[in-house]
């Protein structure tokens, strides 16, 4: 039977079929659906961990304990998880362990465009890269066999286009895999220097063996079209190359991108007039080819930035261009925005009006950086808002700290914000930290987290009490405010900025997209409207301005009745309406 599956769903199907017992991940686009789909199989224990480092360690412990395990993350999550993974490379496995990492060329939903293949090389860990959903499943299953055979964790590298494209997958049954026995083995599993030194030697031997495997494995396949030009490629780029060049080239399609073969590449290139390396982002394959003395063309022609497609290959290599239509007019852009009824809106409107320095973080609320809210000064990575604010305040002194805040979501606070807040309390800066508690991990599509009281499988569990946590860290000023009440937010913000000690404001209101959230009746604009456009400043997609009547208009189909716009209207012209 064949099913049309997302690459991510196909990975999850692979996890199921290959008998994986434990999955621990932190959500991150484009990797999230692997773990969501895995959670639908009762046979697999699945969980959302607070962050990727925790997830990787859970997977490590499970693999040592004898169960096949998996952890999934986006590319930047791998930075967080790198610490345990680099040492798991030395320890190896008992039952197989696979780390799924999804890169985001083109930065559809990310803050940088790093190439995870560099991690495979740095951590000396085998990395497989599928090019469609069938391969996502097949490579996932193969990764466990390789992990156990070579005593190593294995990376499964995906990119947005592979993770989020559907293609046909042949479905099989689940293998019956027994839990492996656990035998205490200090020299293998305890990385004291004395034990780690011989393990490093073993890792080097393993890489050599895996290179030999890469020479002959079926994943690295040659498609001989009897052409004079060759293309070496992998993953989504293989599909783009096939689309743009068709049978006009011979292909070396690499299913394993670390370690790379030597003899296979040399023999593929021999006799060809020209060999192109087509790879998104860094020149990993190209640099390897050049290092082994194979003359290839890669980044001299092709971009190092952005996502590829058949168009990129046509533009730079075959010099073709499709005919297409274009309209003469310039069209307004449509950037993503906070949803109607988003609880972050009232808070960011207040921050904008207060003209404070806003140290931002990763989540839906990063959209608060865009006009008209325009209330963010910096955004670096998960958890950085609080620690960067502390640094900013230490650099600029007491007065600056009365004009500066950090904003961080509940899930991001759990991820890596807590340790930053510990630093604020421990090293005493008058920092104002605003936790945007919308009771869910929003941007990635409503995942549970340690503050929500529910597990990934939807079962009730203990919930972190944010107020008590902050207090126990040493923050005595902790205030809770409803962000729909703009005036209350303004008052609390002013008070906490003036305070002579660190403080936390919890802006608490569940995400408007959550199923259990009941929306109020939509609002409407009455005859009192003078067309001042103040309400346009909240940046709500349900509000527009009617040029003919010179009045604001509210779309009753999408308005959730949150009252943020009504709260700032100077003429009280925004009132309760009726849903059509």
């Amino acid at each position, binding site marked *: 039977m064949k099913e049309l599956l997302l690459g991510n769903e196909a990975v999850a199907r692979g996890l199921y079929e290959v008998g994986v017992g434990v999955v621990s991940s932190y959500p991150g686009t484009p990797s999230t659906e692997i773990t969501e789909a895995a959670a639908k199989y009762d046979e697999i224990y699945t969980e959302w961990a607070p962050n990727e480092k925790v997830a990787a360690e859970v997977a490590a412990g499970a693999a040592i304990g004898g169960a096949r395990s998996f952890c999934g993350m986006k590319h930047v999550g791998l930075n967080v998880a790198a610490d345990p993974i680099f040492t798991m490379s030395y320890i190896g496995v008992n039952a197989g362990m696979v780390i799924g990492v999804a890169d985001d060329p083109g930065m559809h939903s990310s803050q940088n465009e790093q190439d995870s293949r560099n991690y495979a090389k740095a951590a000396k860990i085998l990395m497989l890269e599928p090019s469609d959903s069938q391969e996502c499943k097949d490579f996932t299953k193969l990764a466990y066999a390789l992990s156990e055979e070579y005593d190593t964790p294995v990376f499964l590298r995906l990119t947005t*286009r592979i993770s989020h494209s559907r293609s046909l997958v042949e479905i099989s049954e689940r293998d019956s895999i027994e839990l492996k026995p656990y035998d205490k083995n200090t020299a293998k599993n305890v990385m004291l220097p004395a034990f780690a030194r011989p393990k490093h030697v073993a890792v080097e031997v393993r890489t050599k063996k895996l290179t030999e495997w890469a020479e002959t494995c079926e994943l690295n396949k040659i498609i001989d079209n009897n052409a004079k030009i060759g293309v070496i490629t992998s993953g989504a780029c293989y599909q783009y190359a096939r689309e*743009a060049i068709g049978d006009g080239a011979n292909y070396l399609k690499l299913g394993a991108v670390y370690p790379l073969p030597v003899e296979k590449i040399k023999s593929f290139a021999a006799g060809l007039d020209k060999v192109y390396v087509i790879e998104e982002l860094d020149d990993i394959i190209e640099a390897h080819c050049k290092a082994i003395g194979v003359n290839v063309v890669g980044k001299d022609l092709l971009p190092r930035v952005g996502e590829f497609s058949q*168009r990129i290959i046509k533009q730079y290599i*075959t010099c073709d261009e*499709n005919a297409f239509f274009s309209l003469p007019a310039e069209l307004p*852009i449509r950037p993503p925005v906070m949803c109607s009824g988003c609880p972050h809106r009232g808070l960011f409107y207040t921050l904008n009006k207060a003209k404070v320095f806003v140290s931002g973080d990763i989540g839906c609320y990063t959209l608060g950086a865009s006009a008209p809210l325009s209330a963010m000064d910096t955004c670096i990575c998960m958890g950085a808002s609080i620690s960067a604010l502390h640094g900013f305040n230490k650099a600029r002194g007491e007065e600056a700290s009365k004009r500066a805040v950090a904003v961080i979501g509940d899930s991001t606070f759990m991820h890596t914000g807590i340790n930053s807040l510990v630093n604020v309390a421990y090293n005493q800066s008058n920092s104002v930290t605003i936790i945007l508690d919308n009771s869910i991990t929003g941007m990635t599509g409503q995942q549970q987290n340690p503050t929500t009281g529910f597990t990934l499988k939807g079962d009730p569990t203990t919930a972190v009490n944010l107020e008590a946590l902050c207090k126990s860290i040493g923050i005595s000023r902790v205030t809770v405010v409803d962000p729909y009440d703009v005036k209350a937010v303004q008052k609390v913000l002013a008070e906490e900025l003036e305070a002579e000690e660190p403080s936390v404001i919890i802006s608490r209101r569940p995400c408007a997209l959550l199923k259990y959230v009941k929306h109020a009746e939509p609002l409407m604009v009455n005859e009192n409207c003078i067309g001042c456009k103040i309400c346009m400043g909240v940046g709500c997609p349900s509000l527009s301005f009617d040029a003919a009547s010179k009045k604001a208009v509210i779309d009753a189909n999408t308005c959730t009745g949150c009252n943020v716009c009504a709260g700032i209207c100077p003429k009280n012209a925004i009132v309760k309406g009726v849903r059509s």
Partner: protein
Amino acid sequence: MSNSRGGFPCPPVNAESVKSIIIVGVGGQGTLLASRIMGDALVQKGYDVKVSEVHGMSQRGGSVITYVRYGDEVNSPVIENGEADIILAFEELEAARYLPFLKPGGTVITSTQQIDPMPVITGAAEYPQEVILAIESLGITVRRLDALSLAKQAGSVRAVNVVLIGALAKDMDIEKEVWLSALEKCVPEKFLELNQKAFELGYNSY
């Protein structure tokens, strides 16, 4: 052409046997369900199918595009300038934005709904006037329908996506029964009747 192909002798193998459709709209309008229904119908017909979706940040009210490709053997999951046989647009400005994707001779099916993007709401830009007429003036076939009103008629504004799938179905060489069975598989049972009505309204809209 052959001289400009950087030394490559043959044109791509299956460019003509593969059909390409893009679904464009505003994040939150339900384009993902539309592509899922389409994918299921195409699989039932025995095609090789690839559907590429947008998840993550753009889903928050941004401009979104989903690619659907089918044929004997599909390679790339994405569609580029001049490659789409059909543009199925959930919103007029988005129909205009993605027009360069249309293949010469291709068709645009668009809802007449207009949703102001944030630069229009804030007054930094204006919503373009008469974009559909501008598209037609290029000699392109445009089928338009008021999908929002039809969805309301079916019972929910959220059924806009299924109304538009109904309109698209009329233009494709797949039996209506196949579409209806795909619909049944892709929507929750309690909304099936509403969605069947929405499909019919779209199907019979022109």
